[in-house]
Protein backbone atom coordinates (compact mmCIF):
# COMPACT_ATOMS: atom_id res chain seq x y z
CA UNK A 1 0.00 0.00 0.00
CA UNK A 2 2.79 2.36 0.88
CA UNK A 3 4.43 1.57 -2.50
CA UNK A 4 1.23 2.18 -4.59
CA UNK A 5 0.27 5.55 -3.04
CA UNK A 6 2.82 7.63 -5.03
CA UNK A 7 1.63 5.99 -8.25
CA UNK A 8 -1.93 6.96 -7.44
CA UNK A 9 -0.85 10.52 -6.79
CA UNK A 10 0.74 10.64 -10.25
CA UNK A 11 -2.09 8.78 -12.00
CA UNK A 12 -4.93 11.06 -10.91
CA UNK A 13 -3.44 14.28 -12.40
CA UNK A 14 -2.51 12.33 -15.52
CA UNK A 15 -6.10 11.21 -16.02
CA UNK A 16 -7.69 14.57 -15.22
CA UNK A 17 -6.98 16.16 -18.63
CA UNK A 18 -8.72 13.23 -20.28
CA UNK A 19 -11.91 14.14 -18.44
CA UNK A 20 -12.21 17.14 -20.76
CA UNK A 21 -12.24 14.93 -23.84
CA UNK A 22 -15.91 14.09 -23.52
CA UNK A 23 -17.90 14.96 -26.61
CA UNK A 24 -21.63 15.49 -27.00
CA UNK A 25 -22.64 12.72 -29.37
CA UNK A 26 -26.20 13.86 -30.08
CA UNK A 27 -26.20 14.97 -33.72
CA UNK A 28 -28.16 17.97 -35.03
CA UNK A 29 -31.28 16.62 -36.67
CA UNK A 30 -33.11 18.50 -39.40
CA UNK A 31 -36.50 17.77 -40.89
CA UNK A 32 -36.10 17.98 -44.65
CA UNK A 33 -37.72 21.01 -46.24
CA UNK A 34 -38.51 22.74 -42.98
CA UNK A 35 -36.75 25.90 -41.82
CA UNK A 36 -35.43 25.33 -38.32
CA UNK A 37 -33.66 28.61 -37.70
CA UNK A 38 -34.44 31.62 -35.59
CA UNK A 39 -37.74 33.38 -36.35
CA UNK A 40 -37.25 36.66 -38.22
CA UNK A 41 -39.17 39.50 -36.47
CA UNK A 42 -39.69 41.10 -39.89
CA UNK A 43 -42.22 38.39 -40.77
CA UNK A 44 -44.68 39.72 -38.19
CA UNK A 45 -44.18 43.33 -39.27
CA UNK A 46 -44.93 42.48 -42.91
CA UNK A 47 -48.33 41.12 -41.87
CA UNK A 48 -49.51 44.63 -40.97
CA UNK A 49 -51.43 46.55 -43.60
CA UNK A 50 -49.73 49.82 -42.57
CA UNK A 51 -46.36 48.35 -43.44
CA UNK A 52 -47.57 47.28 -46.87
CA UNK A 53 -49.07 50.73 -47.50
CA UNK A 54 -45.83 52.39 -46.45
CA UNK A 55 -43.85 50.26 -48.92
CA UNK A 56 -46.33 50.98 -51.71
CA UNK A 57 -46.12 54.72 -51.09
CA UNK A 58 -42.35 54.49 -51.05
CA UNK A 59 -42.47 52.68 -54.40
CA UNK A 60 -44.67 55.39 -55.89
CA UNK A 61 -42.25 58.05 -54.70
CA UNK A 62 -39.03 56.38 -55.83
CA UNK A 63 -39.74 54.13 -58.82
CA UNK A 64 -41.99 56.26 -60.98
CA UNK A 65 -40.47 58.68 -63.46
CA UNK A 66 -39.94 62.18 -62.18
Amino acid at each position, binding site marked *: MTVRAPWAVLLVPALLPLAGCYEELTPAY*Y*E*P*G*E*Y*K*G*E*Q*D*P*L*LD*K*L*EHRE*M*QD*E*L*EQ*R*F*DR*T*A*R*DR
Partner: protein
Amino acid sequence: MARMKFLCDAERCIECNACVVACNNENDVPWGINRRRVLTLNDGEPGEKSISVACMHCTDAPCAAVCPVDCFYTTTDGIVLHDKDICIGCGYCFYACPFGAPQFPEQEAFGVRGKMDKCTFCAGGPPEDNSVEEYERYGANRIAEGKLPACAEMCSTKALLAGDGELVADIYLTRVLKRSGRPDTWGWQKAYGAGLTVSGEAS
Protein backbone atom coordinates in the same frame (compact mmCIF):
# COMPACT_ATOMS: atom_id res chain seq x y z
CA MET B 1 -50.37 40.69 -50.01
CA ALA B 2 -47.59 42.22 -52.08
CA ARG B 3 -45.18 39.97 -53.92
CA MET B 4 -41.75 41.61 -54.00
CA LYS B 5 -39.89 41.36 -57.30
CA PHE B 6 -36.91 42.82 -59.11
CA LEU B 7 -37.02 43.86 -62.73
CA CYS B 8 -34.19 45.42 -64.71
CA ASP B 9 -35.26 47.34 -67.79
CA ALA B 10 -32.43 46.58 -70.23
CA GLU B 11 -33.52 49.49 -72.47
CA ARG B 12 -32.82 51.93 -69.67
CA CYS B 13 -29.75 50.48 -67.93
CA ILE B 14 -26.69 52.59 -68.78
CA GLU B 15 -24.17 50.34 -66.99
CA CYS B 16 -23.23 53.02 -64.49
CA ASN B 17 -22.87 50.46 -61.67
CA ALA B 18 -24.52 52.83 -59.19
CA CYS B 19 -26.69 49.92 -58.02
CA VAL B 20 -23.56 47.88 -57.22
CA VAL B 21 -22.01 50.76 -55.29
CA ALA B 22 -25.29 51.52 -53.50
CA CYS B 23 -25.61 47.87 -52.44
CA ASN B 24 -22.02 47.58 -51.25
CA ASN B 25 -22.27 50.86 -49.37
CA GLU B 26 -25.65 50.22 -47.79
CA ASN B 27 -24.82 46.70 -46.64
CA ASP B 28 -21.11 47.21 -45.91
CA VAL B 29 -20.37 44.18 -48.08
CA PRO B 30 -16.83 42.82 -47.57
CA TRP B 31 -14.21 43.00 -50.31
CA GLY B 32 -14.51 40.19 -52.81
CA ILE B 33 -18.27 39.96 -52.55
CA ASN B 34 -20.72 41.62 -54.89
CA ARG B 35 -24.31 40.90 -54.06
CA ARG B 36 -25.27 42.76 -57.22
CA ARG B 37 -23.41 43.23 -60.47
CA VAL B 38 -24.05 44.65 -63.91
CA LEU B 39 -23.69 42.37 -66.92
CA THR B 40 -23.38 43.67 -70.46
CA LEU B 41 -24.48 41.50 -73.35
CA ASN B 42 -22.69 41.96 -76.69
CA ASP B 43 -20.37 44.47 -75.06
CA GLY B 44 -18.92 46.99 -77.51
CA GLU B 45 -21.23 45.98 -80.34
CA PRO B 46 -24.16 48.01 -81.64
CA GLY B 47 -27.27 47.25 -79.63
CA GLU B 48 -25.46 46.08 -76.50
CA LYS B 49 -27.68 45.62 -73.48
CA SER B 50 -26.83 45.86 -69.80
CA ILE B 51 -28.70 44.30 -66.95
CA SER B 52 -28.27 44.54 -63.21
CA VAL B 53 -28.33 41.10 -61.60
CA ALA B 54 -28.64 39.90 -58.01
CA CYS B 55 -30.81 37.41 -56.17
CA MET B 56 -34.21 37.59 -57.87
CA HIS B 57 -36.04 36.17 -54.84
CA CYS B 58 -37.58 33.43 -56.96
CA THR B 59 -41.09 32.17 -56.38
CA ASP B 60 -39.90 28.56 -56.17
CA ALA B 61 -36.31 29.25 -55.18
CA PRO B 62 -33.92 26.52 -56.41
CA CYS B 63 -31.36 27.51 -53.76
CA ALA B 64 -33.86 26.67 -51.03
CA ALA B 65 -34.82 23.44 -52.80
CA VAL B 66 -31.26 22.08 -52.80
CA CYS B 67 -30.10 23.36 -49.39
CA PRO B 68 -29.22 20.27 -47.32
CA VAL B 69 -29.75 22.06 -44.00
CA ASP B 70 -32.81 24.15 -45.01
CA CYS B 71 -31.35 27.48 -43.98
CA PHE B 72 -33.67 29.40 -46.34
CA TYR B 73 -37.02 30.93 -45.52
CA THR B 74 -39.37 33.13 -47.51
CA THR B 75 -41.21 36.12 -46.08
CA THR B 76 -44.93 36.51 -46.65
CA ASP B 77 -44.22 38.92 -49.50
CA GLY B 78 -41.81 36.59 -51.22
CA ILE B 79 -38.36 37.76 -50.11
CA VAL B 80 -35.99 34.79 -49.92
CA LEU B 81 -33.70 35.04 -46.88
CA HIS B 82 -31.35 32.68 -45.09
CA ASP B 83 -29.92 31.98 -41.65
CA LYS B 84 -26.12 32.06 -41.48
CA ASP B 85 -26.17 30.15 -38.19
CA ILE B 86 -27.50 27.13 -40.05
CA CYS B 87 -25.64 27.52 -43.36
CA ILE B 88 -22.72 25.08 -43.65
CA GLY B 89 -21.19 26.72 -46.73
CA CYS B 90 -21.58 23.66 -48.93
CA GLY B 91 -22.17 25.74 -52.06
CA TYR B 92 -25.11 23.74 -53.42
CA CYS B 93 -27.17 26.93 -53.66
CA PHE B 94 -24.46 28.49 -55.81
CA TYR B 95 -24.71 25.64 -58.31
CA ALA B 96 -28.52 25.70 -58.28
CA CYS B 97 -29.02 29.45 -58.68
CA PRO B 98 -29.57 30.50 -62.33
CA PHE B 99 -28.48 34.05 -61.51
CA GLY B 100 -25.19 33.34 -59.68
CA ALA B 101 -26.51 35.14 -56.62
CA PRO B 102 -24.99 33.19 -53.70
CA GLN B 103 -21.55 34.48 -52.75
CA PHE B 104 -18.96 32.97 -50.44
CA PRO B 105 -16.52 35.14 -48.50
CA GLU B 106 -13.64 32.67 -48.11
CA GLN B 107 -11.55 30.47 -50.36
CA GLU B 108 -9.48 28.09 -48.27
CA ALA B 109 -8.12 24.57 -48.34
CA PHE B 110 -10.54 21.64 -48.41
CA GLY B 111 -13.22 23.75 -50.09
CA VAL B 112 -13.89 25.93 -47.04
CA ARG B 113 -15.91 28.90 -48.32
CA GLY B 114 -17.52 30.41 -45.25
CA LYS B 115 -21.19 31.23 -44.79
CA MET B 116 -23.13 32.06 -47.92
CA ASP B 117 -23.98 35.71 -48.52
CA LYS B 118 -26.51 37.10 -50.98
CA CYS B 119 -28.89 39.96 -51.67
CA THR B 120 -31.52 40.19 -48.97
CA PHE B 121 -33.76 42.69 -50.80
CA CYS B 122 -32.42 44.96 -48.04
CA ALA B 123 -34.50 42.97 -45.55
CA GLY B 124 -31.68 41.80 -43.24
CA GLY B 125 -31.94 38.41 -41.60
CA PRO B 126 -33.23 36.58 -38.53
CA PRO B 127 -31.65 38.77 -35.78
CA GLU B 128 -33.59 41.69 -34.26
CA ASP B 129 -34.52 44.24 -36.95
CA ASN B 130 -31.91 46.97 -37.44
CA SER B 131 -29.74 45.61 -34.65
CA VAL B 132 -25.93 45.73 -34.85
CA GLU B 133 -25.81 41.95 -35.15
CA GLU B 134 -28.21 41.96 -38.09
CA TYR B 135 -26.29 44.72 -39.86
CA GLU B 136 -22.91 43.04 -39.39
CA ARG B 137 -24.09 39.64 -40.58
CA TYR B 138 -26.75 40.41 -43.19
CA GLY B 139 -26.60 44.12 -43.95
CA ALA B 140 -29.20 46.84 -43.73
CA ASN B 141 -32.88 46.18 -43.09
CA ARG B 142 -34.52 48.93 -45.11
CA ILE B 143 -37.77 47.02 -45.50
CA ALA B 144 -38.36 47.18 -41.74
CA GLU B 145 -37.95 50.97 -42.02
CA GLY B 146 -40.53 51.16 -44.81
CA LYS B 147 -37.92 51.65 -47.52
CA LEU B 148 -37.15 49.65 -50.66
CA PRO B 149 -33.77 48.20 -51.72
CA ALA B 150 -31.03 50.82 -52.04
CA CYS B 151 -29.95 49.60 -55.48
CA ALA B 152 -33.35 50.34 -57.02
CA GLU B 153 -33.90 53.60 -55.16
CA MET B 154 -30.48 54.86 -56.31
CA CYS B 155 -31.01 53.94 -59.96
CA SER B 156 -30.86 57.26 -61.82
CA THR B 157 -32.65 56.03 -64.96
CA LYS B 158 -35.17 53.95 -62.99
CA ALA B 159 -34.03 50.91 -64.96
CA LEU B 160 -33.93 48.76 -61.87
CA LEU B 161 -37.34 48.38 -60.29
CA ALA B 162 -37.92 46.69 -56.95
CA GLY B 163 -41.22 46.34 -55.16
CA ASP B 164 -44.63 44.77 -55.42
CA GLY B 165 -44.69 42.72 -58.64
CA GLU B 166 -48.03 44.19 -59.70
CA LEU B 167 -46.72 47.76 -59.48
CA VAL B 168 -43.42 46.86 -61.14
CA ALA B 169 -45.28 45.17 -64.03
CA ASP B 170 -47.60 48.16 -64.34
CA ILE B 171 -44.71 50.59 -64.76
CA TYR B 172 -42.89 48.29 -67.17
CA LEU B 173 -45.95 47.75 -69.33
CA THR B 174 -46.52 51.49 -69.56
CA ARG B 175 -42.94 51.95 -70.73
CA VAL B 176 -43.17 49.18 -73.34
CA LEU B 177 -46.41 50.57 -74.72
CA LYS B 178 -44.91 54.06 -74.90
CA ARG B 179 -41.69 53.13 -76.68
CA SER B 180 -43.14 50.11 -78.58
CA GLY B 181 -41.14 46.96 -79.25
CA ARG B 182 -41.14 43.64 -77.49
CA PRO B 183 -41.00 43.44 -73.71
CA ASP B 184 -37.62 42.06 -72.64
CA THR B 185 -38.13 41.02 -69.05
CA TRP B 186 -34.77 39.41 -68.54
CA GLY B 187 -34.87 36.73 -65.84
CA TRP B 188 -38.47 37.47 -64.95
CA GLN B 189 -39.97 34.19 -66.14
CA LYS B 190 -37.06 32.13 -64.87
CA ALA B 191 -37.43 33.63 -61.42
CA TYR B 192 -41.16 33.95 -61.12
CA GLY B 193 -42.44 31.13 -63.31
CA ALA B 194 -42.74 30.34 -67.01
CA GLY B 195 -46.53 30.26 -66.69
CA LEU B 196 -46.70 33.86 -65.53
CA THR B 197 -47.27 36.86 -67.73
CA VAL B 198 -45.53 40.15 -67.09
CA SER B 199 -48.52 41.31 -65.07
CA GLY B 200 -47.98 38.43 -62.66
CA GLU B 201 -51.18 36.64 -63.62
CA ALA B 202 -51.23 33.01 -64.68
CA SER B 203 -51.38 32.70 -68.46
